[in-house]
């Protein structure tokens, strides 16, 4: 951290070596009374999210700073919360974690998860030592919605669980010279976009009704059944008369394919945008992150499927360096324990290949460890008691979900099939699940989803690099010469520089500087073999100012050694982009060998 004077080691003690201040255990016995009661059983429009952040700022003075980092295409303010105890230092002077949600407008619950993280830490600052340390020693940059236009549109316009993924900049998806001219149409005026089906004479249909539940249509393909139903897609008409329905709706691109690392144009990667960061939302976020090298960890929230995803997004990138994979695995595997029904996965290998994804850029472009969680998994509906796969998975899954609707929700999330006149198809039926079913958690299960995911972030933040100078000693070599050895130790899982950052020269290497009046530094370098101190990697130039390209490894040590002439006092200073600055006076060695 270049911009901040060195802090004492007291503040940044590791998890194990804590300086314990006893506090009242207010949460015990269920007597906890939140300072700010936020109903965590619903989802909020963008302005409501911002209003909650303002309430937090007012409830906890000195912890919450709100910054508008840009405006969405439709002009909504992108308000970022810089969260930290400002009394111990400004957010920008601390090692920080980035948390965002909702780059896909319909994947709303990431916004609440990001908000919940801030809220929980603030509520527990007084009572929970680890929450207090996170807010005293670390910072969070929290942007609940990367895509406020898509978010609000999902709430307020007729949509499905999967639509309004895009931002709202008009886009000509069908290349007819018109933009956004053929989206969904709410034909029955119920505010929902259902599926359309039409009964046809037996033998002319592609589907038949499930004998166990006539609400379900099953495909005849691959069976000996005769079909009497056609499935006609989502509710809509051919607005532009081109023979297709709903093929050019609002927006029509994917901001999670618009990031610079491994970006490819739209004919190679669907939705990529005309060039990297061409959208105001992605651009504002990228400019913020590029200006904040103190970000050492990142989390992005999506839905759904129950996944803890990391890059690479393409096999062609090659595997990430082994040291980084080890750190990723440790956090990801802990996440699987914290998040039942979630699996820790690699994007290209376990989900699908993408070019230009956000968490890919954060790691591959900025060298920062980053996860993307897919919140909510359908086995959670019945707590995993129903089969997730099976011989007739499609039918079983539909039946399970309708069971859920019928029993647990008393029919609240399903629109029964009902007749509507369609200008092209004639009499059809419209029905299906409402948008709040399938990809977002049901209201009564929201808080658990938010808590588990927020705590996954907190754990990640706890493991951001935590480097200390554990010793700095000088040994007299005679003839006016001394050998100085400084030992740096990182107690956290994450290295102060990812191996990827080191390999690609991203950002600034860590610096270890030896200072002293009247002292001539003859040589300096990393010491790999403490028993053969002559065999150290002498720097080619400027031996008093060592550049540690690899930083200090996670749960590891780095030894730096100098040969100096002259008797003045010496001081070792450590400076890193992603770890707190340290400084220590060099003391005489008790014993030879350092």
């Amino acid at each position: 951290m270049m911009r901040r004077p060195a802090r004492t080691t007291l503040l940044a003690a590791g998890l194990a070596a804590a300086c314990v201040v006893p506090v009242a255990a207010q949460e015990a016995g269920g007597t906890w009374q939140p300072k700010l009661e936020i109903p965590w059983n619903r989802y909020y429009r963008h302005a409501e999210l911002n209003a909650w952040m303002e309430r937090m700022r007012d409830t906890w003075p000195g912890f919450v700073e709100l910054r508008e980092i840009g405006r969405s295409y439709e002009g909504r303010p992108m308000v970022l919360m810089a969260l930290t105890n400002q009394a111990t230092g400004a957010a920008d002077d601390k090692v920080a974690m980035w948390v965002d949600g909702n780059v896909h407008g319909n994947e709303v619950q990431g916004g609440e998860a990001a908000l919940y993280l801030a809220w929980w830490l603030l509520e527990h600052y007084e009572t929970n030592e680890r929450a207090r340390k996170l807010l005293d020693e670390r910072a969070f940059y929290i942007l609940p919605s990367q895509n406020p236009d898509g978010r609000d549109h999902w709430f307020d316009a007729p949509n499905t669980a999967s639509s309004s993924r895009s931002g709202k900049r008009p886009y000509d998806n069908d290349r007819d010279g018109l933009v956004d001219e053929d989206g969904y149409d709410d034909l029955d005026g119920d505010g929902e976009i259902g599926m359309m089906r039409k009964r046809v004479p037996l033998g002319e249909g592609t589907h038949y009704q499930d004998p166990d539940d006539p609400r379900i249509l099953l495909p005849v393909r691959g069976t000996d059944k005769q079909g009497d139903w056609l499935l006609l897609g989502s509710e809509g008409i051919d607005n532009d008369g081109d023979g297709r329905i709903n093929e050019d709706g609002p927006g029509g691109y994917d901001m999670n394919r618009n990031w610079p690392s491994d970006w490819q144009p739209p004919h190679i990667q669907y939705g990529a945008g005309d060039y990297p960061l061409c959208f105001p939302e992605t651009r504002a976020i990228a400019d913020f992150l590029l200006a904040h090298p103190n970000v050492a960890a990142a989390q992005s929230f999506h839905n759904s499927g129950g996944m803890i995803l990391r890059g690479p997004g393409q096999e062609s990138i090659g595997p990430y360096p082994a040291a980084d994979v080890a750190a990723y695995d440790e956090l990801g595997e802990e996440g699987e324990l914290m998040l039942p029904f979630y699996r820790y996965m690699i994007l290209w290998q376990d989900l699908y290949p993408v070019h230009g994804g956000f968490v890919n850029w954060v790691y591959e472009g900025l060298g920062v460890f980053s996860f993307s969680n897919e919140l909510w998994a359908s086995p959670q509906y019945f707590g995993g008691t129903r089969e997730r796969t099976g011989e007739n998975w499609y039918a079983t899954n539909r039946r399970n979900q309708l069971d859920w609707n019928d029993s647990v929700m008393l029919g609240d999330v399903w629109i029964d099939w009902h007749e509507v006149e369609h200008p092209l198809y004639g009499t059809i039926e419209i029905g299906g699940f409402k948008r709040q079913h399938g990809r977002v958690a049901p209201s009564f299960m929201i808080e658990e989803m938010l808590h588990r995911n927020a705590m996954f972030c907190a754990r990640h933040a706890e493991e951001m690099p935590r480097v200390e100078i554990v010793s700095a000693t000088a040994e007299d070599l005679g003839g006016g010469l001394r050998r100085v050895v400084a030992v740096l130790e990182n107690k956290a899982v994450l290295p102060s520089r990812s191996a990827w950052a080191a390999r690609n020269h991203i950002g600034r290497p860590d610096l270890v500087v030896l200072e002293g009046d009247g002292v001539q530094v003859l040589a300096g370098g990393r010491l790999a073999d403490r028993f053969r101190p002559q065999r150290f990697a002498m720097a080619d130039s400027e031996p008093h100012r060592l550049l540690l390209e690899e930083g200090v490894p996670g749960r590891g040590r780095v030894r730096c050694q100098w040969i100096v002439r002259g008797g003045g006092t010496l001081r070792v200073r450590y400076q890193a982009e992603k770890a707190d600055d340290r400084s220590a006076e060099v003391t005489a060695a008790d014993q030879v060998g350092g």
Partner: protein
Amino acid sequence: MVSLHRLPAGILFAFCTFLPLPAQQKSTNTLPPGGYLSADDILAHCGELAGKDGVTVRELARSAEDRPLLLLGFGERGGVGRQAVLVVADPDGTRPVASQVAWGLAQELAAGSSPLLEAATVYLVPVANPDASAHLLADGFAWRGAPVDEDHDARSDEDPPDDLDGDGLVLKMRIPDPAGDWLADPNDDRAMRRADPAHGDRPTSRLLDEGLDEDGDRAFNEDGPGGVRLEANWPHRWREHEPAAGPYPLSEPLNRALADFVLERPNIAVVLVFGAEDGLARPAEGVAEPGPDSTEPPKEDADLIRLLAERLYPEAKDGEQGPPRTKPRSAPHGSGGFADWARFQAGRLVLESALWSPPAGEGDEPTEADLLAWNDAAYGGAGFVSWRPFDHPQLGPVEIGGWKPLVRDNPPVERIPALTETWAGFLASLADDFARLEWSGIEVHDLGEGVCEARATLVNTGLLPTVTEMGRRTGRLPRIRIELQLPEGGVLLGGRDRLFAERLAGLGGHQEFRWLYRLPLGSGPARIHAESLTAGSVDAALEVE
């Protein structure tokens, strides 16, 4: 030691006068950049064109040093599908000849007499990298945008090249070193060549740019002023993590403004780039399937570029004397350049020229010996500073000398008018080439009781395609819209009343359409309408034969 860009002008002048006068004959050529207009002069002149009839002047963005990125428009007028040519000069800021020629073209186009303006709009960016161009003429090396830590030592711009001997130039240092890579040509001590063990060469020297090792890292001039190169900052084949490429593609406002301008105008059919690379002198063969990192256009587009290149460099016919014109030397294919973006992502027909090289001897490209001979003949040897001893504070005795900047890639100012005429002629020659839609092969059969079956073929009679093959592949350029317009009461029985054609190649590329419809009694014929943002529109009546 003072670095060059801080050197007072007076010193610069004084040292120039002490140069030994060459023994060769007097010459009428002015050593470049003598007589060249500075970037600021050109921008000022262009600004003065504002308000002139048929000329528009746009400021697309401002540079880091607050120079405007100017874009001139000539013959801009409305109408769907009026096509356009975009000329972009010196995007790397290393070839001042490009902006000199571009300014010459601007004056011609402003006069309004070019036949090209009848057929198309011309957009011209006379100085695409104004800061770099300005510094090149003033300092002798192109300045490159925002400060960057090229050598990754947590300091930026701390080790620039330096004018050690105070002659106003940053040249080369020849350092005696038996472990070096170079030796002097035995026939001409000025010329250095790489030692080749296969020829029994014994290396004698190292060659470095003139300068000090300011930061003591044993590397010379490795972290000079600025760093982000506009010509490495475009999205196609952008090199992530290369400092000169910028933090992300189009991070530089000048580039992004130009990109947006092009993307908003699918009617820009041809992009002509005057820069360091030359795809016209030696056109690419083209490939069947250009991959995401291709440097070669699709075969169809390469064939077209070759046809156009022959206008500049006609093949020698049997028994005729070949053309005397030397083909310009091309810089190696770069990464993240404007031309590649315009070709592979914006999908336009891109023509690139390096404009000029000194005459070649044997081959079609000048060798080092050819260059020295040209220097002696054209400039009386003044373009090359002979090696002179210098006591380097870090390296000990060295020699300083070498080519003056600009001499090898930029002609004497006296040649600029002829060069400008060549390119004005080339641009004028495009006037008849643009894609043109025509309806042909219209057949309408009366099937009785008003029922008609009609066929019509839409043909592109121009040389250029409606969109390039690469443009078709990008899927981002508009298609040709075809409409059947039936008179009131008419009924479509077969076919579609609105449909699209992807691309019609030049020179007769075509697509046939067919309809079945019924006309009301006594009505006029049905009509067909084709319309393209890249090729204009055309109507026809479906008259029964």
